[in-house]
């Protein structure tokens, strides 16, 4: 540790620290304009000049990069230093009078009108003050080494290589971030041939996926993070106090032995582009329910505002129910939740815009607790509901007029008329359908599926949460479309079921097992490779096969196959079945 005096205050700092950091430690303010902790001090503005007195020799040095040494006396406010600082500030101010950073510093050092007129005066507010932070961050932190200084003397300037946009630039925006005057701006335009499309993805390379996520922890997107490209940056590691950033963590497959499994693998929404008459994916401003939900969310691309694709507020919106549901060509079942969220959409759109709202429904299924009251309230708010399945959404009216709006054609079955409603935006309530990989998951856990494709529960009425296989439970939309209250109820019941087994400590396995009688077993080993659960092993010494009780599931295949009928299936023994036969065929 080194001891030194700063303006008379004694301070102890480790070996390599600079005078600036030592001064900060004792709360002495030293002006800086080109200093940035992200990289080596560049020491160009010289504003941090201080007087270092060693013995009788005093010398003016820059605090930002002068390493402390034992017993020196630092004067940060001596008469000479104040003169130097004011004079330097005058030179800077006279060349860049309107830059915010410069004006602020000039006020702090109370420098008024500069006495020295500069021929290179630049009145712009975002003029480049040649502080070099962008060049250093690009070279030392991002290590892409794209921008640099060129020309000497008063003509010094920050330039791109050969003056053009270089493909070495990875558009990380670090230079724009550190630039104190805002001279470097991030321009989103057709860069590298990519059009900035309406991305729902994350904005920065390190982001928190959702605010409600558990655990609410940021995650690094390896494709866009600079560190994985140039090995440099590591700014997030530098600023994270608990040093929680670890770049070499990899995705890893973890195997956990569990007793019971709850499958709540969720659902997919129906791809509305299959029903071409609605124009999803073809016409602008035809959104699926999930996309509209994203638009309504404050973290979404439009941060909550309801906007058409060209950024204007829609004057009228059409909400189409049962897209893909209650439809023999697609999904015969009712997706159950669409009516209610359609009404929610209508309510939110009423709040945020003063657009006309039309709902096209077959039956308004407001079945839940308080749902009907909500429906009545929506009608009071002036939402127009039309009972009729929408036939087509197009840009041209049947009479051939082109109104730069979407035309919804449907039959109002109550009024018995064909309607053509012009709207600015159409929201489709897509059906809920089983996930694409449901068959693979099903085979993995050897459970079966119900006719509509969702997981099959053990019993539709009496036991909707467990499945045929012991220890495998299902909850949520994986078992069938349902809304949040039902899902929560089902999930809690599954959880309660699981906990009951866990609290008991051991699991009763049903007595149905196979058992080999040593006397009759001839050691023919036919049953050994028959068992799907490899529960039968061959004992070399005794030359007989034996069944491992725990592994055996009691299917009885081996019982039937044993030529010596040495294997008896407890609960389903040959004698019992023959007795059943005799009973059945007695009369």
């Amino acid at each position, binding site marked *: 540790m080194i001891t030194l005096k700063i303006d008379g205050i004694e301070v102890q700092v480790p070996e390599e620290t600079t005078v600036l950091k030592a001064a900060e430690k004792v709360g002495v303010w030293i002006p800086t304009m080109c200093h940035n902790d992200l990289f080596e001090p560049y020491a160009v503005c010289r504003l941090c000049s201080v007087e270092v007195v060693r013995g009788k020799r005093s010398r003016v040095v820059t605090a930002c990069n002068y390493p402390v040494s034992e017993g020196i006396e630092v004067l940060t406010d001596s008469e000479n230093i104040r003169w130097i600082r004011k004079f330097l500030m005058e030179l800077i101010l006279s060349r860049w009078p309107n830059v915010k950073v410069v004006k602020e510093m000039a006020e702090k050092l109370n420098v008024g009108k500069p006495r020295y007129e500069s021929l290179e005066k630049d009145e712009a507010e975002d003029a480049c003050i040649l502080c070099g932070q962008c060049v250093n961050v690009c070279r030392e932190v991002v290590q892409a080494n794209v921008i640099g200084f060129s020309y000497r003397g008063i003509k010094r300037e920050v330039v791109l290589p050969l003056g053009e946009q270089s493909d070495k630039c990875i558009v990380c925006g670090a230079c724009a971030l550190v630039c104190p005057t805002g001279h470097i701006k991030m321009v989103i335009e057709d860069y590298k041939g990519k059009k900035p499309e309406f991305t729902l993805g994350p904005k920065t390379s390190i982001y928190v996926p959702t605010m409600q996520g558990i655990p609410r922890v940021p995650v690094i997107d390896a494709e866009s993070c600079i560190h994985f490209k140039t090995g440099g940056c590591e700014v997030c590691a530098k600023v994270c106090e608990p040093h929680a950033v670890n770049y070499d963590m990899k995705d890893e497959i973890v195997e956990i032995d569990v007793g019971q499994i709850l499958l709540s693998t969720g659902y997919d929404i129906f791809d509305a582009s299959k029903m071409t008459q609605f124009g999803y994916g073809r016409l602008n401003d035809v959104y699926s329910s999930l996309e509209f939900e994203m638009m309504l969310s404050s973290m979404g691309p439009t941060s909550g505002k309801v906007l058409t694709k060209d950024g204007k507020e829609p004057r009228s919106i059409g909400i189409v129910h049962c897209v893909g549901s209650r439809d023999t060509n697609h999904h015969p079942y009712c997706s159950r939740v669409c009516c209610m969220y359609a009404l929610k959409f209508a309510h939110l759109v009423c709040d945020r815009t003063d657009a006309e709202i039309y709902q096209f429904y077959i039956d308004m299924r407001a079945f839940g607790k308080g749902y009907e009251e909500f429906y009545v309230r929506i009608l009071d708010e002036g939402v127009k509901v039309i009972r009729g399945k929408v036939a087509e959404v197009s840009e041209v009216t049947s009479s051939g007029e082109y109104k730069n709006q979407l035309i919804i054609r449907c039959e109002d079955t109550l009024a018995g008329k064909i309607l053509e409603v012009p709207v600015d935006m159409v929201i489709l309530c897509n059906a809920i359908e089983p996930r694409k990989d449901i068959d693979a998951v099903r*085979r993995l856990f*050897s459970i*079966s*599926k*119900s*006719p509509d494709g969702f997981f*099959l529960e053990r019993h539709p*009425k009496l036991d909707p949460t467990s499945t*045929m*296989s012991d220890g495998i439970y299902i909850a949520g939309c994986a078992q069938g479309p349902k809304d949040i209250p039902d899902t929560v109820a089902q999930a809690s019941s599954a959880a309660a079921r699981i906990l009951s087994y866990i609290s008991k400590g051991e699991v009763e396995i049903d007595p*149905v097992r196979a058992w080999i009688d040593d006397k009759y077993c001839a050691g023919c080993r036919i049953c050994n490779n*028959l068992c*799907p*659960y490899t529960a039968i092993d061959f004992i070399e010494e005794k030359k007989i096969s034996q069944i491992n009780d725990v592994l055996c*599931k*009691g*299917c*009885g*295949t081996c*019982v*039937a*196959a044993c030529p010596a009928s040495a294997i008896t*299936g407890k609960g*389903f023994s*040959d004698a019992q*079945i*023959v007795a*059943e*036969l*005799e009973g*059945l*065929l007695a009369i």
Partner: protein
Amino acid sequence: MEFEPRIIAFFCNWCTYTGADLAGVSRLKSPANIRVIRTMCSGRVDPTFILKAFELGADGILIGGCHPGDCHYSEGNYKALRRVHLLRKMLQSFGIDEKRLRLEWISASEGDVYQHVATEFTAQIRSLGPLNWKQRFEQKEPKEQLIAV
């Protein structure tokens, strides 16, 4: 009085038995001639049971299992398939019509499939008439039996 066939059905507990139950719950009409024996898996059905059943007077045997790949014990129904094929070849030598033994894949959700299979199989057996396999044994000397076949 008209011939009422007696049909024994071995239904696997996880799929066909539950399917049949679903048919009942969904009030699907199906003939009562089917007398069901529940086994943990269609693989459990031993060919001797089938012959025993015929001997005890059954006119038709129906085995119901899960669809291939759905079996709770993953391979049970494949074993049943193999045994039924071999058994069919033997039935001919016993003088029993092959059509009297039938293997069907009925999953837990196929209540209607169960109803269809049951009605169709019963009609088929009724057309075949009673087997009375055991009485045939008693009328003939053992030696003649062999010659007759």
